[in-house]
């Protein structure tokens, strides 16, 4: 078991890579699967020193839900932002900084949250605080910063807490 | 299909990575492998020389693809001569580098040295124009490394100039090759020859541009004025053994001109006639004068050697630029001579620099003055073309071969006046270095305490062995001038009868 853990340090990554290979070769065949799986084992093994600790994902199915939520938000927010960009005069726009205190602790979780914020239009993660307890978010147009903060914490951070911690 | 043809390229190409990988941290082992490889290389090239001596053109089809579709190596008398010259030049230089401790003053000297040899060998052996470019780059990039070996502000600055200037040259090379390919649809040199000869008379302009750009590229390497500016500071600032090895680098340019402008754009090719008549010879004459004046005007011993090398390139290019068989024969003899002579002068200059610095100025007697001054005297005689060494014979051959030329009076005048200026310059340098300030030499020679020779175990006589080996080469070239010129004549004859070469490379497809 220990040997297996050393050989396959990141099982999820191995799966991800195998899937990636199939995506890359753009087709499904036994050869591809076998070969992709071999690479999926080899590459994490080779790169293991750069990722010494192993992130825990406690509830993988929550992750799928999360992805769907984010995708939907992206589509929705894109339209909002497009309207702001196209039609809202600069003078009426209220850009704002928001500080989001973090309950998340692990770097993987924080990064996912920050990435989500950036990918959903209208908000953008700009920085973390010097000890990593807060996230600095910039809003394109946020007359009410508290509302945005609460929504982020509610909609994303809560779900990520469930997934990662 | 004789695999020996690829050996001069493969041997250093394998030894160099081996040195880097396995014995990089063991200087002694590195030296042993480097010397052994070079000795073996000399043996291989001599064997190839023997193969080529009967006039057969040997072809090696890499990847088993027929010419002109794949790349071929071609061994004829000229390439055989050049690879032999390279390997027998390399050996004493390598011994010098070891003996003088130059090789330990920076990392990876021996690997770069082997790579350099690989590049030169490749350039001499290839029968493909683009592959010539590749091997030019191999030898150039190795030379960049050797040039800045052991570092130092001024050397780096000279290195920047050297690299930038040569990169411009490499760019021009690509422009030229692109043009030639675009016109003829081929890269193989023999095939280019066939195509150039068949070029329609009303479609010559672009081929001419390509050909002349190629000539300019080679002229840069051959240090033809006004494309020679890279040479003085590069050679004068390079470590001595490297500068000595560089003596063959200018000859790569000379070789390439000889090769391409006899085989491909030879005197009989209608489309490219008159490309160089108007300017190549005058430029060569000016090169000789510039070199001679430089010898006289230099304040540093290294620059004296560098300008001496330029002057000798001037003489060589004069002979080449006539594009006649007899002049080519003279050029080939002179080429061998000037390579050995320039290398010797660089090494001797280093013996001086090691003892009293680079300036032509003396404030203290140096160790081993007698030996060094004798070597300097010999090197100066050789490079200035004074008897009894081969330089004089080479000069006579060139004069003799150029007597029929339109500008014969100019050629003779320039060669002779150039010799005179060089003689005055060398006498000036030599008398200041070895006479001035040397009152009465001590019989007891103090051990040399200058840096670079501090490693006690180092055999201090090795540098002298190297110098005398080069000198021995010059003497041999003098004594066996008959056979040597005979070979040169046969080589020139082969060059000016390119049909055999083309037939050998293209086989049945040749017309």
């Amino acid at each position: 078991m220990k040997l297996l853990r050393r050989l396959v340090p990141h099982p999820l990554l191995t799966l991800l890579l195998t899937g990636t290979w199939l995506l890359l070769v753009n087709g499904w065949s036994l050869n591809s699967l076998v070969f992709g799986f071999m690479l999926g084992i080899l590459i994490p093994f080779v790169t293991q020193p750069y990722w010494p600790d192993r992130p825990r994902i406690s509830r993988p199915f929550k992750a799928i839900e999360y992805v769907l939520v984010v995708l939907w938000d992206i589509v929705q927010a894109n339209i909002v932002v497009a309207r702001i960009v196209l039609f809202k005069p600069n003078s009426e726009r209220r850009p704002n900084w928001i500080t989001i205190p973090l309950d998340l602790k692990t770097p993987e979780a924080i990064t996912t949250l920050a990435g989500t914020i950036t990918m959903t239009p209208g908000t953008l993660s700009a920085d973390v605080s010097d000890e990593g307890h807060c996230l600095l978010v910039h809003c394109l147009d946020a007359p009410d910063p508290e509302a945005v903060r609460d929504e982020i914490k509610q909609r994303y951070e809560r779900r990520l807490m469930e997934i990662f911690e | 299909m004789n695999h020996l043809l690829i050996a001069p390229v493969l041997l250093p190409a394998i030894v160099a990575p081996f040195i880097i990988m396995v014995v990089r941290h063991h200087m002694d082992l590195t030296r042993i492998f480097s010397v052994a490889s070079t000795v073996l290389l000399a043996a291989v090239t001599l064997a190839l020389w023997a193969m080529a001596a009967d006039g057969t053109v040997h072809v090696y089809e890499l990847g088993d693809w027929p010419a002109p579709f794949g790349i071929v190596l071609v061994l004829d008398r000229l390439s055989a001569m050049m690879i032999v010259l390279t390997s027998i030049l390399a050996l004493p230089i390598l011994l010098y580098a070891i003996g003088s401790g130059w090789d330990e003053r920076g990392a990876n000297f021996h690997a770069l040295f082997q790579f350099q040899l690989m590049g030169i060998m490749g350039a001499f052996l290839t029968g493909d124009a683009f592959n010539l470019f590749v091997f030019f780059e191999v030898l150039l990039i190795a030379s960049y490394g050797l040039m800045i070996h052991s570092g130092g502000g001024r050397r780096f600055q000279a290195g920047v100039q050297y690299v930038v200037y040569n990169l411009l040259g490499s760019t021009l090379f690509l422009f030229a090759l692109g043009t030639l390919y675009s016109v003829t649809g081929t890269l193989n040199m023999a095939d280019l020859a066939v195509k150039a000869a068949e070029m329609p008379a009303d479609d010559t302009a672009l081929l001419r541009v390509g050909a002349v750009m190629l000539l300019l590229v080679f002229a840069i390497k051959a240090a033809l004025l006004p494309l020679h500016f890279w040479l003085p500071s590069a050679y004068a600032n390079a470590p001595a053994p490297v500068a000595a090895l560089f003596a063959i680098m200018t000859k790569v340019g000379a070789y390439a001109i000889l090769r391409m402008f006899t085989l491909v754009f030879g005197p009989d090719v209608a489309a490219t006639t008159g490309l160089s008549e108007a300017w190549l010879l005058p430029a060569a004459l000016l090169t000789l004068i510039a070199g001679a004046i430089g010898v006289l005007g230099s304040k540093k011993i290294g620059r004296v050697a560098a300008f001496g090398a330029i002057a000798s390139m001037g003489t060589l290019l004069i002979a080449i630029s006539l594009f006649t068989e007899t002049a080519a024969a003279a050029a080939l003899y002179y080429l061998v001579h000037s390579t050995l002579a320039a290398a010797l002068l660089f090494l001797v200059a280093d013996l001086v620099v090691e003892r009293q610095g680079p300036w032509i100025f003396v404030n203290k007697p140096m160790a081993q003055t007698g030996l060094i001054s004798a070597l300097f005297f010999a090197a100066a005689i050789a490079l200035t073309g004074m008897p009894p060494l081969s330089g004089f014979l080479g000069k006579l051959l060139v004069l003799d071969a150029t007597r029929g030329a339109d500008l014969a009076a100019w050629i003779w005048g320039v060669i002779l006046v150039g010799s005179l200026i060089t003689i005055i310059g060398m006498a000036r340098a030599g008398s200041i270095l070895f006479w001035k300030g040397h009152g009465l030499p001590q019989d007891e020679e103090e051990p040399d305490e200058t840096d670079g020779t501090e490693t006690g175990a180092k055999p201090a006589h090795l540098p002298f062995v190297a110098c005398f080996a080069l000198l021995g080469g010059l003497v041999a070239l003098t004594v066996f001038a008959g056979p040597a010129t005979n070979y040169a004549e046969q080589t020139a004859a082969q060059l000016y009868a390119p049909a055999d070469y083309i037939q050998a490379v293209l086989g049945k497809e040749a017309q």
Partner: protein
Amino acid sequence: MESLFEFLVAAFLVIAGIFGIVGSYGLIKLNDPMSRLHAPTKATTLGVGGVLLASLLNAAAFGKYFSVHELMITLFLFLTAPITANFIAKVHIHRQETRESMPSAGEDHHWATHDTPEDEEQ
């Protein structure tokens, strides 16, 4: 059915085009640097996404083979765009803002970009 796919592909293309241009337009129109950062990283990402979806759908419906590898491009864009934005924002904070001009960093002292070596020595 085919016309439905055709319509979908065309729609994706139009949407993509619109978002693409909006993103780059925003880059010019928006008047403060931090806001400009929003335009491309969002709209362009969907713009490219639209094209990729169109391509995927197009290949699936009309091509000779099923093509999914466009997803890889999306994957890389989604992974890298936040980092790009993060860094450009940090450049902005570094060059244009001071500790004082920034909002409070909550329980921590300041934002990481303004972290200087002297702080670490404390």
